[in-house]
């Protein structure tokens, strides 16, 4: 498959993520959109990594670091999700709402 399919797909996913983050007020949805953006980037990394692996004959392992990088991102994202969800749970317990605009105490 040509590389631009992947690029367009991940760009679309990324934009959906951005729009979600900017427009939605539910913290869970915002969170999900952030995950979506992360995964769009992951997809792009994997796609380019595969492309380089096939086209450049610079050794058996060339281009493999992109895929390894993706694993790291996934691990970090998993950790982040657990922390983030825990925050959201605590937030819900305290104010009975997951609306991000409700939490504007940093103002002033």
């Amino acid at each position, binding site marked *: 498959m040509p590389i631009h399919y992947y690029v367009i797909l991940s760009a679309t996913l990324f934009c959906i993520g951005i729009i979600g983050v*900017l427009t939605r007020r539910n913290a869970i949805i915002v969170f999900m959109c952030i995950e979506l953006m992360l995964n769009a980037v992951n997809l792009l990394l994997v796609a380019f990594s595969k492309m380089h692996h096939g086209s450049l004959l610079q050794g058996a392992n060339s281009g493999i670091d992109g895929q390894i990088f993706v694993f790291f991102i996934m691990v970090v994202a998993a950790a982040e999700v657990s922390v983030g969800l825990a925050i959201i749970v605590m937030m819900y317990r305290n104010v009975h709402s997951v609306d*991000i*605009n409700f939490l*504007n*105490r940093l*103002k*002033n």
Partner: protein
Amino acid sequence: MNNLLLLIPLLPFIGFLVNGLFRKSLSKSMTGIIGSGVILAAFVISLVLFFKVKGSGAPIVVSYFDFISVDAFRIPFAFQVDQLSSLFLLIITGIGFLIHVYSTAYMNGERPEHFARYFAYLNLFVFSMLLLVMGANFVIMFIGWEGVGLCSYLLIGYWFKNNNYNYAAKKAFVMNRIGDLGFLLAIFWIIAKLGTATYSDVFAQVGSFTPTELTAITLLLFVGAMGKSAQIPLYTWLPDAMAGPTPVSALIHAATMVTAGIYMIARSNIMYTIAPYTSDIVAIIGLATAIFAATIALKQNDIKKVLAYSTVSQLGYMFLGLGVGAYTGAVFNVMTHAFFKALLFLGAGSVIHAMHHEQDIRNMGGLKKHMPVTHITFLLGCLAIAGVPPFSGFFSKDEILVGAYNENPLFYYIGVAGALMTAFYMFRLYALTFLGKFRGTAEQQHHLHESPSAITIPLIVLAILSVFGGFLGIPAVFAEGAHTLENFLAPIFAASATYNESHTTGHHLSHQTEWIMMGAVTLLIVVVIAFAWRAYSRREKFVENRGLGKVLENKWYVDELYDAIIVRPLHLVGGFIKDVFERSVVDGAVNGVGRLIQYSSRQVRLIQNGQVGSYILVMVLSLVVIILILREQEVIFTALRRIF
């Protein structure tokens, strides 16, 4: 030899340091011995140098180090002792020594540390004055010039607890500063034109100035002389300078410092001789000052003020002498004036001392029998300044007046009128102080006493000098070639004399006319003296002055005039700047900056609204902008380059 030369100014400087630094631990007698001793030593060395110069006829020039050295331009720290400066050295150290001795008695009532402070200032003054006359270039002269100005300020304000005295000191300083500016500009001009300030180089290249430049430079130098030597329009500080202790008035404001201007012009005489208009201006200002100050002196009642105006008047005569080319006469008058004016001031100091700081001559009278030595010496001083033959003032004044007649007979007649006024006010002063009955309080009369010998001995020495000093300059009309001073100073004024001989039509007085003039003037002076003697020796009551007398008593209202045309407008401008410019512009700018920051921060703070969504929006938009900029940077750079 080099070291001997250096010792002259160095000794007073050491005296200044010792007296100044150890003023709290030195006893009064020790201070007096150190203060006077260093001056005496300097006098002895000056005497040695004087005879050396007199013998060889050549100036001694010694350069010690480079005071300023920039590229090829050099100002050496050099001393020059020639006929003119050796004469001034003798006057400064000789009379300075007498006045130091006098001061030990006169200032004896002061506390030891103030006594030492006084002597420190006095020594510093002598040091500066010696620097002024010994410098071999205009820059060294200027150092001394400023130094004497500073010491004058310090000594006028010596009794600093009296605010009026402080004002007088400040006035003297500011007036001098106006003059100094002129002097400084002249020095800059000379250096810019010739690249040197050394006398011998400058005077040798005097032909390379254009006439206009020379006129401007000499006028600027004259402005400096006006300030230091108290000429119209900068003379008003000198009468006020009488706030200082009387010996200070005698030393600084009569005998030495105020003659610095005359020294400077006599030193650069060739420039004045060649410059087309300056000499006339100098003569006219000198004459105007001489007359103007004499009229004021007629109606003053403070013993020191009369002498102060008389000093201004005499300085005017000296400038008249300089202006008409009678350089020797001017220097001669500096010398004789130093003798008799120091004598008169010290005599006045002796009177003030005896009267317990009473200075109003209306409250004196009849001091003749209480203070015989002061009386006799003061009388001799009055005769000398009035120009009665054969006292010293007669010869020096006559020489200037003859010079003035050769230039313009009108100068002569006005000068004679001034001389008559001088005779009148001096004998008015004498008669009111020493003759008639005592008019002070009974307590003052009880305390009247002759002053101690530290006061009377300088008076006697100065009286002898005042009486016989004139014989150094016997005019040709009495005996051809008997003018010792003229022969001695001839090398200094040689260039001017040569120039004058080739450029003037040369109408010289015949000896017969000179005899007649001399006789007539002497007769008039004697008549005026007799009149003043009669009018004031029995005066008991004093009526309020009216009309012209009141104007004269109030010094022609010159101080008020200056106040109105200079001081007040300056105050107005200052007030305007303080109230309007300062408030609206300066304060406005400063407060405006503060207010702008407060306002803008209040606006910027609104961005931080706590809405996470808006933060993210800004972040995304900024990112888009950055990416766009990075993408299109070539286009942007070319566009920017076209603009700037």
